[in-house]
């Protein structure tokens, strides 16, 4: 959906124009790495209205390259709305007529929350590589402090896809009393060796760029454009399916003949290079490194000797787990691992495996069945939060 000239702006099913807010925290945040953040800030967007007893709040957790801008537009001229606009808005699965939706940029990010490109108060210089490595647990703790600030004792639901889904799962285990529903989409309870391997190649691409400068590229006034672009290209391949790439590009050439050289010839090459280039202009390399590490480290079962059913026994909420058939980054099997652990632990869980050609990216793309399942579940959540409202 774009706000093209001539169309009514904002579209009727959009949250419309939104404005991010900054929340500043003075209380130190202890981190899994043993470090702590003394002063930190979060960039946040909210949609809808918080009800009187704060029972209708939904937290959106973002994935690797996501941010606080999940829905709506910052400017009527914006070419694109927020990254999950297809699923957040009036009449959409996360219906802003019922829910108060909170989306934030995670710590370590590069869209306004404290991260590697922020100024380190100790040195007056950007943190760069000195910014502590964040974990999913750290993010959840920072989100819990944000909830306190917003007056939200318990989320009606915490929702997220991919790395966002990991935060949702962690919420259910770390703060089991503070959410009623967990929606875990296209995610996994831990990365596979193959997932970690892809992340490592992406990190090496960044760190081996001469402009990386040990992470202090900001002071040097350069950015490791090439390495970051390459990392994005690798990541992007894992977000699509073989089928969707074939459909989109096939073996199409940019010109009508082969050049017998190493320049861009196939359309898919051109597409990937474009993705890499635009990404490297808008994303921070140190943030990318940090996010991939958070992915690699996440493994709630490790605290219980690898026993996932025991790990999830802490949870009190109900779960909706959704996977997509052609997702090979976090395949349906990974979601089913989680579902099996939840059923073994006798937790409330529903699971849908959505047939989609779009690979891992499917969680961001409109799809009739995905919308139906998501809507049905969120309506249940909404009905309960109204009931909660009625009793108190």
């Amino acid at each position, binding site marked *: 959906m774009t706000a093209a000239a001539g169309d009514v702006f904002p579209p009727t099913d959009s949250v419309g124009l939104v404005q991010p807010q900054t929340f500043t925290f003075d209380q130190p945040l202890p981190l899994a790495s043993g470090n702590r953040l003394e002063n930190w800030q979060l960039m946040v967007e909210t949609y809808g209205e918080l009800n009187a007893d704060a029972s209708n709040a939904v937290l959106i957790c973002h994935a690797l390259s996501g941010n606080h801008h999940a829905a709506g537009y910052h400017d009527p001229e914006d070419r694109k709305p927020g990254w999950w606009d297809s699923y957040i808005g009036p009449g959409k699965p996360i219906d802003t007529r019922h829910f108060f939706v909170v989306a934030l940029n995670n710590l370590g990010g590069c869209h306004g929350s404290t991260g590697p490109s922020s100024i380190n108060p100790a040195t007056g210089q950007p943190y760069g590589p000195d910014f502590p490595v964040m974990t999913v647990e750290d993010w959840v703790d920072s989100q819990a402090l944000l909830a306190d600030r917003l007056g939200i004792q318990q989320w009606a639901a915490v929702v997220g896809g991919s790395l966002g889904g990991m935060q949702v799962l962690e919420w259910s285990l770390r703060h089991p009393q503070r959410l009623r529903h967990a929606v875990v989409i296209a995610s996994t309870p831990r990365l596979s060796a193959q997932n970690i391997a892809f992340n490592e190649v992406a990190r090496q691409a960044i760190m081996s760029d001469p402009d990386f400068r040990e992470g202090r590229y900001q002071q040097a006034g350069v950015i490791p454009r090439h390495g970051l672009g390459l990392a994005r290209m690798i990541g992007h391949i894992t977000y699509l399916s073989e089928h969707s790439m074939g459909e989109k590009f096939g073996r199409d050439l940019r010109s009508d003949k082969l050049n017998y050289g190493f320049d861009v010839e196939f359309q898919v090459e051109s597409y990937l290079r474009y993705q890499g280039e635009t990404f490297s202009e808008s994303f921070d390399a140190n943030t990318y490194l940090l996010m991939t590490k958070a992915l690699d480290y996440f493994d709630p079962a490790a605290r219980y000797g690898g026993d996932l059913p025991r790990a999830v026994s802490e949870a009190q909420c109900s779960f909706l787990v959704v996977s997509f058939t052609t997702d090979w980054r976090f395949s349906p099997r990974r979601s*089913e691992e989680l579902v099996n652990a939840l059923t073994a632990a006798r937790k409330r*869980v529903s699971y849908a495996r959505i047939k989609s050609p779009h690979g891992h990216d499917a969680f961001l793309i409109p799809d009739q069945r995905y919308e139906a399942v998501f809507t*049905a579940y969120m309506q249940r959540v909404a009905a309960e939060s109204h009931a909660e409202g009625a009793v108190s």
Partner: protein
Amino acid sequence: MRQDLAIIADWVRPGSRVLDLACGDGELMHHLQQHKQVTGYGLEIDADKITDCIRRGVDVIEQDLNRGLGNFADNSYDTVIMTQALQVLRRQDLALDEMLRVGQEAIVTFPNFAHWRCRFYLTFKGRLPVSKTLPYQWYDTPNIHLITFKDFEVLLREKGLKVLDRAVGDLAYEGHWKARVWPNLFGEVAIYRIGR
């Protein structure tokens, strides 16, 4: 509430753990949750029915029963239920084994292929029966293994399984005296409660 579901609800102990295989739109599980305070899950593969379950608050897991119940532990449920789905599975004997591995008891329902109308149809028309309980043509039927009460009970005997309860009736599950005396001839549908 369908009569067969009411009978099943009678046989399920309050507060027990239930797995409902091919749970459809979740009507039975919903009823059992509301009136018997059971916990557990429905398993289903139909996309729309899965959405129906979620909408009515039944926990449903998308799973193909032909791939077994390997993801459920031995003895992890009190009752494993399967209504009107046994005949569409590839290996019913294995399905029964699985149900009674995971559950203490199993409850199954299916249409009787030896009902007198079916027999009449085949004998005098020379064609495979089409009826209310078996409304399909031979080429498009999902019912790939048709069952008679007698066949089913022979299978149970061979497996050393016990029939704990049996209700035989017409489509409305009203047990006529004829169905009690000659169930395999006059019963259209049956519900069995089976134990190890």
